[in-house]
């Protein structure tokens, strides 16, 4: 599903350049649930941004579902993001003046799906995350966990190939974190490929594979026994 070969990325900081990713090789198969771990400055966010086509790599190869992701202009990148990727952010990033339903329907809007179909689909995904009754509520009326679940529904609405979660539990207390992870596990059980960036060990162990990043290189990549989040809920 995801194939990365010898990926390099550096940032210019004034006169010196900061080499953030120093040759990353990584593959993820369909249906995997991968945790990307590392301390701050390890390059995990940069990697996720490149995976999410929010940022471009300096060199190296990136194939997503056998489509080479290279030299994208903004329009193409936007279309690919819409088609291939679902984003889950630490701070949820819901649009605060749109109801839960409208937020979930937004990626479909950019796919030019007609309004009625959009709303039906969005409602279906809200139901999946258990928030059907909250469809007309604004984000400000939802709790943190609920917000993240709306965000997950939104990420899934466009039926992407890969879900990218950047510290999905970073802004949540542990109980709520486990609820969210439980949801992510269930989505993964249904066959979706998910990449989770986290620095929390317990969250990482709820995935099926952990990739450790340090100073821009992968230092460890191991399959693990998944801890089910459901038992903590």
């Amino acid at each position, binding site marked *: 599903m995801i194939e990365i070969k010898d990926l390099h990325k550096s940032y210019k900081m004034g006169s010196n350049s900061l080499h953030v990713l120093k040759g990353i090789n990584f593959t993820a198969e369909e249906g995997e649930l991968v945790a990307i771990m590392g301390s701050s400055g390890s390059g995990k966010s940069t990697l996720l*941004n490149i995976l999410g086509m*929010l940022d471009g790599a300096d060199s190296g190869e990136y194939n997503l579902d056998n489509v080479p992701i290279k030299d994208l202009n903004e329009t193409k990148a936007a*279309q690919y993001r819409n088609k291939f990727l679902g984003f889950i952010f630490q701070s949820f990033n819901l*649009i605060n003046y749109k109801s839960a339903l409208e937020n979930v329907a937004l990626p479909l809007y*950019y796919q030019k799906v007609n309004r009625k179909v959009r709303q039906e689909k969005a409602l279906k995904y809200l139901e999946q995350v258990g928030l059907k009754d909250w469809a007309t509520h604004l984000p400000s009326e939802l709790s943190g966990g609920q917000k993240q679940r709306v965000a997950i529904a939104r990420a899934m609405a466009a039926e992407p190939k890969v879900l990218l979660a950047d510290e999905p539990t970073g802004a949540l207390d542990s109980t709520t974190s486990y609820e969210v992870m439980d949801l992510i596990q269930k989505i993964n059980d249904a066959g979706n490929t998910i990449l989770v960036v986290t620095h929390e060990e317990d969250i990482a162990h709820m995935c099926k594979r952990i990739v450790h990043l340090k100073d821009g290189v992968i230092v460890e990549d191991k399959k693990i026994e998944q801890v089910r989040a459901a038992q903590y809920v």
Partner: protein
Amino acid sequence: MWLFDKDLWVEIFHTLGQNLFRTFLTMLGVIFAMIILVLLLGSSNGMSNGFNKVFAGTASNSLFVWGQSTSEPYKGFERGRRIRYKIEDAELIKKQIPEIEVLAPRIELGNYRGTTTVYRNGQTSGSAVYGDYPEIDNITKKRLVEGRFLNQTDIDDSKKVCVIGEETYKLLFEKGEKAIGQDIRINGVFFSVVGIFKPNNNINIDGENAVFIPFTTFQKAFNSGDRMGWMAIAVEPGTKVVVVEKEIKEILKKKYDIHPKDERAIGSFDMSEIFNNITAFTTVLKGFSFFVGIFTLLAGVIAISNILLITVKERTKEIGVRRALGATPKVVKRQIVVEAIVLTAFAGLIGFAIAVGFLAIADSLWGSGDEFPFVKPMVSVPQFIISFLLMVGLSVLIGLIPANRAIKVRPIEALREE
């Protein structure tokens, strides 16, 4: 068609409605600009209409020719010779210059601008008495209060009839007294009144206290023979009055042995010159109004662009999220440009409505009066459409500034913003 996309409009009205007070303040600039533009345009239209009203009834392409005294000796004649035209000159000029549409000869009793005593039942008035052809009515229209103007039958039969001015009527008749059919006496000859005219406001060649009698009657009654005082001439549309004026003078100079370089022997007045001056004045006024208005509008639209820049800054994160979710730069740009257009158009329409209200009030206050040239101050439909399109065009151009700012921020930077 994206223009009818409900979501687009929901989002636009949401963002505009989010900070209503700011939106209103932003619009204020355009509202005032539109008010100024429409008031300026409307007022200059009103002035232009006012001048047209003042000149209504006077042919704009007309000139008047009369005789004066020579200032150069020529062919044995001394200088200071009085030039007196003959009625045959009118025919001669008309025949030689086909561009002349109307030529009305006139003769005046007594001296130029002189008056003659007119009697009626012991009442008198010192009036100007003219012998006229009915064609004069095509050049300086008489506003008849009662009765009729001179006609061809009066000329053919040399009828002893007259048309009198309102001032003359007041001097000779009691208030409310019927004048039509009554006789007045000029130099011992009785004339029956057939019409009373009101002077044209402002442009008034004949004076208010005047008596018009048929030219032929004048000849017989006052023994003027073949003399002719002056000519009122209207030329065909498209013909330059100055050219005809020159040709007439050449004909007359030749006939009366006037020195070709004698500028004073023949008096003339080119009416079109005044019209041209006034037309030029109102055109410049309109152009200037438009110019000032459009620049005021530009300032207003720039204010909108400014506020949109701030909005874009505030919404950086939201825009980043949208782009992460698949909004293409085009979609983001379009929304901001449409916001600019909606703000401008809405504000413009409000300003337009207010200004039209002002103009309507101004019209009802001064529009019908005679003393002030200000009639129907209103913008025309093409003027409105042009200003509106210009305004929308400006808003598109200026909306592109914040729109480009919005897409210049990379989604990753936008998302990082906290």
